[in-house]
């Protein structure tokens, strides 16, 4: 399971202005790793003491994040368009 590498967003308006963004999500991977390293022991302790499902919830949230790879949304209305791709 691998988090997404990049997100591409394009918003084009009738007036001619367009916004195109390349977001390198890969730079978030170290942050995700640090957050995981901090979160896992705390979640483990919470699960043991309070009987919560914090660890499982964290894993499932990570699964949702990884599953967004391949998501694409392309909406065009007259001369306006919005495109979002996650790879």
């Amino acid at each position: 399971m691998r988090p997404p590498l990049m997100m591409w967003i394009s918003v084009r308006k009738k007036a001619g202005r367009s916004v195109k963004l390349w977001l390198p999500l890969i730079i978030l991977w170290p942050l995700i790793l640090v957050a995981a390293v901090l979160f896992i022991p705390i979640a483990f302790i919470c699960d043991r003491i309070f009987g919560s499902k914090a660890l499982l919830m964290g894993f499932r949230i990570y699964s949702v994040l990884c599953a967004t790879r391949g998501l694409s949304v392309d909406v065009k209305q007259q001369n306006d368009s919005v495109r979002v791709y996650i790879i």
Partner: protein
Amino acid sequence: MNEERSKILEMLAEGKITVADASRLLDAVGDATSASAEPVAISKKPKYLKVMVKDKGDNVNIRVPLQLLRAGVSLATLLPKQVGPQVSGALKEKGINFDFTQLKGESLEELVQAIEDLSVNVSDKDGATVKICCE
């Protein structure tokens, strides 16, 4: 494989093998032939749910990974029980009659399987089309 069958028939004709042996050998060659000739049907599991809507100048193309659906449903099963009725109520206000409390992890694969087999193709006289499929 025809060559092998010919050899077997030649050996039978020359008396080197009996009819029973020839029959056994032909069956064996026949099984091997059918096994190698049979096309292996590899059913490719669909990975994405595609929704395409066209209406005059408006186009909507959405491609959602089915894995996202699985992950989302798995996450939803962990939500506290008191959240379920609230979510169902909010969906109902939007016109979606779906009982969120009935969403269970056991029926996840069944749900995804049903969606994989889903195919919708609707068009009206004005040329507007709606297509929903899995690929």
